């Protein structure tokens, strides 16, 4: 069947027809992903729409104890006319912003320092250990992070670090059990670091040698060269890394469901140090915790509404991350 055929054929020879068929079928196969994403967004959004419609913009606001609202929705009477939809998800939104924001901020600093370390300062023997170790951290499943969190860190924080007096000071409002903001942020940062380190290190390595050698020639020491030349040049990569890590952090449900406290509480920064020990529950963890109640109609619609918020945010962040990575192509950095 290997007959030579010119590309501009109108499908006359069987080989040319095969060509066209191959191209179209591969194209159709590829477009299926597109169709799937579109279907997912439309389907999830339409399933969650009643929850948005009944609440309007106050869906994102604060209108009372979120957990209580969720149980009221869950206990709605069976008659569709009397379904309860009222919810103000601000504590959940705030928890998502807090955990993701803090994890990404701390993570960027840690990742940049670690990337500089790997690219510049680590001796060859150390580099041979550190690189696979970081890749391994990326491979560990989130349920294992959650397991160590909930069986080791949470009891440690709850029993050793949080004193009885601190617990008493917020008793009646919330219970400090150790599953808290600080444990969630620490584990989440460790989880997203490897992604960021990979991107930033690749970009640092791709900085043209002439630039760094020029800086060295002007008398800068190794750190200065790195900081003023390479890291600055890799700024788009750092932004791309932050965006991609943020998408990962927002979508992390299992680990956060295990260690963040499973209470729809908005930690209060005015509480001082106690702020770090208060429990919270971001959006993704809320869906994981309540995944069994999906069959109760208004409750399921509320959960799908939360899922659609996550989906659209992840969409925006992924496309943003891809856009941020594009300027790096001109350095020849393949990401």
């Amino acid at each position, binding site marked *: 069947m290997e007959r030579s055929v010119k590309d501009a054929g109108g499908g006359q020879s069987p080989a040319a027809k095969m060509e066209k068929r191959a191209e179209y079928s591969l194209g159709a196969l590829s477009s299926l992903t597109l169709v799937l994403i579109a279907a997912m967004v439309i389907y999830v959004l339409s399933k969650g729409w009643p929850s948005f419609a009944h609440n309007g913009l106050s869906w994102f606001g604060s209108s009372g104890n979120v957990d209580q609202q969720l149980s009221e929705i869950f206990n709605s009477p069976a008659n569709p006319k009397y379904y309860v939809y009222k919810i103000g998800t601000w504590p959940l939104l705030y928890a998502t912003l807090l955990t993701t924001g803090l994890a990404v901020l701390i993570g960027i600093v840690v990742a940049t320092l670690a990337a500089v370390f790997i690219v510049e300062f680590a001796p060859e023997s150390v580099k041979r250990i550190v690189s696979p170790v970081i890749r391994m951290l990326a491979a560990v499943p989130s349920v294992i992070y959650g397991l160590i969190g909930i069986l080791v860190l949470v009891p440690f924080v709850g029993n050793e670090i949080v004193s009885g007096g601190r617990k008493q000071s917020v008793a009646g409002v919330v219970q400090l059990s150790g599953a808290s903001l600080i444990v969630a942020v620490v584990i989440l940062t460790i989880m997203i670091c490897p992604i960021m380190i990979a991107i930033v290190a690749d970009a640092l390595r791709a900085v043209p040698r002439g630039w760094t050698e020029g800086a060295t020639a002007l008398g800068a020491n190794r750190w200065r060269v790195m900081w003023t030349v390479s890291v600055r040049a890799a700024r788009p990569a750092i932004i791309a890394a932050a965006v991609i890590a943020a998408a990962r952090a927002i979508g992390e449900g299992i680990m956060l469901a295990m260690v963040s406290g499973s209470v729809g509480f908005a930690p209060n920064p005015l509480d001082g140090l106690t702020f770090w020990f208060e429990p919270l529950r971001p959006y993704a963890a809320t869906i994981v*915790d309540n995944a069994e109640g999906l069959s109760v109609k208004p409750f399921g619609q509320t959960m799908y509404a939360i899922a659609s918020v996550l989906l659209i945010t992840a969409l925006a962040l992924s496309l943003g991350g891809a856009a941020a990575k594009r300027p790096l192509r001109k350095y020849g950095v393949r990401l």
Partner: protein
Amino acid sequence: MRRNHLTIAAASCVAAMALTPAIASAKPTITISGSTSVAPLTGKLLPKYLAKGQAGYNKAKFVIYQGGSDIGVADVAASRSVMGEASRDPKATDPGGLVWNKIARDAICLITNSDNPVSNLTAAQVTAIFTGSTTNWSSALGGSTKTGPISLVVRTAASGTQDAFAKLFGVSTVAASAAQKASNGLIQQSVKSDPNAIGYVSEAFTSGTNVAKYKGVSCTLINAKSNAYPAVRNFWYITKGAPTTEAARFINWVKTSPAAKTIIASGWVPLS
């Protein structure tokens, strides 16, 4: 050449899958969902029921999901599950058209950590503790040396045990700050690991904790059977309308066979 073999293999897989509805399954599948308190009992009953020589041998397949009594009720009402399990009595707000079959009884025990050996709790104390009007141990138990903030561990909204607790112990609204757990096992574990915790579980889940008497009566199966212990609730199997043949066979076996009664008696209270 290899490509053709692959295509044939793929085509036959697809054909096999397409044919499956055409080949009627010999055994119907009964999906059960609902209470996490009843699920262990069902988990013990089913192997016996499906064993050779028993009524259910080779008759049907059973799949158990959990989720809580309220989810069981909702699933059955919406025809998502064939059978539901509930550990609370029917409420006025439950959907209509459901048939409730009582199969066993169970006691709800109040448990505290072994380092906090509370011997007895009165109704007033229970209400004060669980509604959150008292927040530390020294004021909750007058005259005791125990200090520290009270850690409340309760069940989630979907739980029938939660509803039963509210009704039997007279606590209409639990404190909003209480930690909500999805099952008896999790309450048991929380209470075991936190010296300041107090919670309520099904009688089968009390090992490793201190069980407090309620109104002066110990929480044991004997006291539950004789109705001396006040907090006894019912276990139900729910179906939508009259149960299907296989579901009816199972429910009947649970209610009447002596083998089922022995199993129920091993951790719960049989009806007769």
